[in-house]
């Protein structure tokens, strides 16, 4: 184990995979300079043949990633801020996510789209989306939402090795956070979540950037209320680790879903649908979503702070859940 910032863990994953397989290439705007630091040093290390700064042409580079992957490369396409996934959306939605089906598996696409999402830094309305469900809804592309440095590394390495497209959504505001990263060739499978904290009273499924406030809320609740929260990190928004979520709710009977996305586009929907269908018999209280409102993130710090769920919002939802008896 080594303590690292998430952004450095991501950088390691990229470097290791480029080292491991020379067919891995990286394209994107300013991947050389690297505004987040995740691609720093790769241009110098692997050269301009494999690490390519592109013009500001997301529609093109999204589709080029698909074409180069179809033609035999493993492509990492950096889209910078997650809102720019919308500029590249056609390539992802109409091409990447469906070529496997439409060609009956002739085309498999080892392509990883990587972007940073979420608010917390007053980047305002066009730089703060957490658009994992818009991509998850396409069905043909994995959606990884790492919450820790270790998972960021492990999920990204698996994403790059996968033969199907992946949207890897790192949390913009958490890149600087330290975490334990297992040494060696650490990989994390796509589609398998984890229990980040065990507890028998209430299940909190916390997505990506929301894991940390959820864990903080859990500590508070344990100390102040004697409530033991089980915190589940789904790790991939698509496909969901159904077994893990159902098992936890089977134990606690209570569920909170915490997601930084807008309510209407949050995982509260798919997860509630899952549990209300397959875990209904075990549910003992309403499923409570803790998400942002159905608005773009506002700029002024007090507005942004009020919009993005924090430990207090999560704790309040947990208490509410515990109070309900049916």
């Amino acid at each position, binding site marked *: 184990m080594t303590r690292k910032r998430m952004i450095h863990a991501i950088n390691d994953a990229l470097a290791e995979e480029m080292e491991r397989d020379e067919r891995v*290439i990286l394209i994107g705007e300013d991947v050389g300079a690297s505004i987040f630091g995740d691609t720093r040093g790769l241009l110098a290390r692997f050269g301009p*043949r*494999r690490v*390519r700064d*592109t*013009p500001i*042409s997301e*529609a*093109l*580079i*999204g*589709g*080029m*990633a*698909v*074409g*180069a*992957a*179809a*033609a*035999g*490369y493993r*492509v990492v396409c950096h889209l910078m801020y997650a809102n720019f996934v919308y500029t590249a959306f*056609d*390539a992802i939605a*109409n*091409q990447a996510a469906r*070529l*496997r*089906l*439409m*060609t*009956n*598996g*002739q*085309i498999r696409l080892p392509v990883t789209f990587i972007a940073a999402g979420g608010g917390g830094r007053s980047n305002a309305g066009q730089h703060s989306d957490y658009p994992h469900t818009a991509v998850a809804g396409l*069905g*043909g*592309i*994995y959606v990884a939402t790492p919450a820790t440095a270790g998972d960021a590394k492990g999920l990204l390495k698996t994403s790059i090795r996968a033969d*199907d497209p992946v949207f890897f959504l790192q949390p913009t505001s958490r890149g600087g956070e330290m975490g334990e990263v297992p040494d060696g060739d650490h990989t994390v499978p*796509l*589609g398998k979540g984890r229990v980040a904290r065990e507890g028998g009273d209430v299940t909190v499924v916390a997505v990506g950037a929301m894991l940390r406030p959820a864990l903080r809320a859990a500590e508070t609740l344990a100390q102040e209320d004697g409530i033991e929260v089980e915190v589940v990190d789904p790790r991939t928004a*698509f*496909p969901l680790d159904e077994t893990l979520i159902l098992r936890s709710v089977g134990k606690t009977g209570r569920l909170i879903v915490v997601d930084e996305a807008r309510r209407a586009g949050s995982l509260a929907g798919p997860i509630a649908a899952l549990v209300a269908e397959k875990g209904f018999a075990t549910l003992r209280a309403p499923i409570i979503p803790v998400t942002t409102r159905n608005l773009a993130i506002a700029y002024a710090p007090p507005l942004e702070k009020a919009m993005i769920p924090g430990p207090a919002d999560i704790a309040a939802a947990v208490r509410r859940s515990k109070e309900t008896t049916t």
Partner: protein
Amino acid sequence: MIPNDPAARSIDLLRGMLTIRKAEERLARDFKAGALPGPVHLYIGQEAVAVGVCAQLDARDWITSTHRGHGHFLAKGGDPRAMFAEVYGRSTGICGGFGGSMHVADVSKGILGANGIVGGGIALASGAALAAQLDGAQRVGVCFFGDGAAAQGVLSEALNLAALWKLPLLLVCENNGFSEFSPSSGVIAGSIAGRAEPFGVPGRQVDGNDVEAVAEATAEALERARGGAGATLIEAATYRIHGHVEGEHAFLKTQYRADEEIERWRGRDPVARFAATLVERGTLDAAAVEALAGEIEAAVEAAADSAAEDPYPEPAELDRHLLGAA
């Protein structure tokens, strides 16, 4: 791939065009008979473009195509029977019946697929060209697209990047005068070929109904591309004799082109014209042309008849394409 003997080569060109023509005439009849499950966009009248270009390519070169993709598929070496089966939605189709007319693809032949998204192939071909460049084996990426598609911004994005990176890319615009039911003059300003020049990419106009002229322009562009000098845009002037989509008269209330216009272009039919040229040159006599046409028609009809007997795919086959499935 390309025979050395000029006579054999030109007979191959004729054979290629006749194959497309006969195959599509069959599809037109099938459509009229109500035997096709979905829409088909026929290429009749444009055969010289696909054949002229593809005659210069080999199987390792990549192409991307459009909604009007049968001609490109066949010219690049796609199997007629597998194409018919696909359009008929059969499990023996080149895409197992999953894709249909708008998605015929054969990766083993370098055919990355027809595409239902107008302009969608441009980015894919650019990515394939990037892969070709990385391979370093003088492969190229070729993109067929229409005059209507030239209005999609991704074309200029590709011209820009191809110029910067000297991508081995061939952009082949088939200007058939229409974008669905809109005459080009209403939706395309100025010259399409001319749009390449400001990027430093050569733009050439060619008679798209003259298969040898197309082949020649292609050969020149390929020399450039394979020699590392970069991309070329070829604008081939042609005409689609059939409608935008078979059966369009059922829903269109007004005529969007004059009968005389169609007749005028029938007079420049690329297949008949090239046959006449070969007769004139003494390469073939009229009887031999007829025999060739008859032979091809018989083969195509047999392929279609046989494909029509094939079974539909089973719904259980869908499972194979779910993410996570091997």
